[in-house]
């Protein structure tokens, strides 16, 4: 029973840390499936986290915070879109630039506006998201195993958490069952064909980039307004890159993205849990190894040793209309 409770605790924190990964990786999915590589997930998330934390504390409303987060993230996504779609610039370079601008600007503006060393003020009640209890969670908690799973693992999360998980089947549906999704996938594989069919490649790609911005906005808002109460300097701490790794690990497929994010989240939760504890058979594993594991796994996958990750064919290539 003790092991079971530990497992539930670990799984619960797995869900908690996976949510921003899922949101950001799905954001990247929309963009990359349309042929726009996005290294800037990290920066958009960070900027959104800051905007959310700042607006929520100034206006005292979590909804306004969320709106600000999404707005800022979409603006950055549009910069990326302008550079890589309209100006046909290098998409990697543009993404790197956005990461740095977000990293610097959040600290500078945060210090100038709030003077707390780059933090935003602690968010109070009503300014941040609160957890919701599913019905009968308290009553059912005493049932062995199932009750514990229901009330400790499934219940007691933020609305955004349920939203993130609902987004996975939704994205699958959009991608594989709607016209927009078909065109989105087509423009990432063969934009010439899409253009021949009389559909604007540029507008389609811009819409994909905007979707990416919106979801990064949610991811950032989750970080600063749900997981913690306020923005802290550099709080994404590489989560955008883990999300990118998860996206590749999932071979750009929505349901796989969820599992990849849960796996990486689980590794994260384990590494916190295992600090100083020895594993059976293996002995004590350095925490740093656990932290590096998502990246190592992604590299191994990319190398084609566990299946092959093939990116969308037109990814990273700006589209030039023939004259």
């Amino acid at each position, binding site marked *: 029973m003790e092991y079971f409770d530990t497992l539930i605790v670990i799984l619960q924190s797995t869900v908690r840390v996976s949510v921003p990964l899922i949101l950001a990786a799905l954001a990247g999915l929309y963009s990359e499936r349309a042929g726009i590589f996005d290294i800037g997930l990290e920066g958009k998330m960070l900027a959104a986290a800051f905007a959310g934390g700042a607006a929520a504390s100034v206006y005292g409303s979590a909804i306004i915070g969320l709106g600000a987060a999404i707005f800022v993230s979409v603006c950055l996504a549009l910069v990326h879109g302008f550079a890589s779609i309209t100006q046909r610039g290098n998409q990697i*370079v543009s993404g790197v630039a956005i990461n740095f601008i977000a990293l610097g600007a959040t600290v500078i503006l945060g210090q100038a506006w709030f003077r707390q060393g780059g933090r935003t003020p602690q968010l109070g009640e009503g300014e941040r998201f609160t957890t919701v209890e599913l019905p009968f969670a308290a009553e059912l908690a005493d049932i062995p195993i199932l009750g514990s799973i229901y009330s400790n693992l499934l219940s007691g999360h933020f609305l955004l958490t349920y939203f993130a998980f609902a987004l996975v089947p939704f994205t699958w549906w959009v991608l594989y069952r709607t016209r927009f999704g078909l065109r989105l996938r087509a423009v990432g594989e063969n934009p010439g064909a899409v253009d021949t069919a009389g559909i604007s490649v540029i507008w389609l790609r811009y819409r994909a980039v905007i979707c990416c911005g919106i979801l990064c906005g949610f991811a950032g808002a989750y970080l600063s307004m749900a997981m913690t109460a306020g923005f802290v300097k550099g709080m994404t701490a590489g989560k955008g890159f883990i999300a990118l790794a998860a996206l590749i690990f999932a071979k750009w497929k929505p349901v796989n993205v969820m599992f990849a994010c849960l796996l990486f989240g689980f590794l994260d939760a384990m590494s916190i849990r295992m600090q100083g504890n020895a594993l059976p058979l293996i002995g004590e594993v350095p925490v740093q190894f656990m932290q590096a594991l998502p990246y190592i796994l992604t590299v191994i996958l990319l190398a*084609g040793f566990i299946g092959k990750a093939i990116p969308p064919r037109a990814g990273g290539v700006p589209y030039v209309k023939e004259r």
Partner: protein
Amino acid sequence: MSAPYAKLPAWVDYGLIPLINLTVAFAVAGLVVLAVGESPVRAAGLMIQGAFGYGEGIGFTLYYATNFIFTGLAVAVAFHCGLFNIGGEGQAYVAGLGVALPCLWLDQFAPWYLVFLAAIVGSALAGAAWALIPGWLQAKRGSHVVITTIMFNFIASSLMVYVLVDVLKPAGSMAPQTRAFAESGQLPRLDWMFSWAGVDMGGAPFNLSFLLALVMACVVWAVIWRTKLGYEIRTMGHSPSAARYAGIRESRIIIITMMMSGALAGMMALNPIMGDQHRMQLDFVGGAGFVGIAVALMGRSHPVGIVPAAILFGMLYQGGAEISFEMPQISRDMITIIQGLVILFAGALENMFRPAITTFFATMGTARAGKTLPAGE
């Protein structure tokens, strides 16, 4: 549409357009300063004063510039082959081992120049080894070098934390760093260069690795533009299919280029470890690997451009530290913004002003032709 833009005079292509892009980047940075409630003009003044106004400031400026010359050259070499090495940060970090280990082993008995030689070789090898894996994966397995180098930055950071905390930390010490090196593990400072000019360098850690950086800049120029290997690298960068057609071995060139890039990034570790702190500390790279991207883009991947670009960023680093005394709102994070803006405007939006400039020169050309025509008659 193979050439979307008309040909412009060389001075416009290599001088005017980069200058306009940079001006716009700094103008936007100025707007940020304005948004924070300070005067951009005063900030720029303070920055220049802090970076070049007195001997110690100049020393620090050049000390930071040394890091950026190495990392800028690293990114540039990869650019010539059409590869984007974002992993300079991780390569330099791991190369810290290549510097620290020879110092720890040899500093008791060998003279400083032998230690220095061993450290140069060690850092280059370690950096090259860390870049070899992404290069090999790109060449042989087709995994994109951008993604793998990003992943390797994170892996390097975890690895080095482990090494510093669990292996190299002297027993009984709390700080995650190696022991301090003895005299011969320390590079001579270049105060004599300053005394020639009659300036006092003060406590600035400006050291011999700056000269090594300049030598490497010349070496990079010679290799890229004056050797067969460099020709093959540039051919690959221009057109991989043409290179393949010409019988250039693609995977060999990719791996060699990535190793050269990693070796250059790795040598950056000499400057902070042997030149300044005389021990290896946690996170001693401090983002220099990423600054290299901005430096290479700004310097248009040519050593002649990279050295001034690196000095400019050295000025931003040193001047930025000085500004924060006078303007507490503006910390060194301002440089991160400027770095991002330079990468954006000099890199991704490189061609934004080109159509306008092309039209401008085209109309200028016709106007001149129109004017000379009646005069000739």
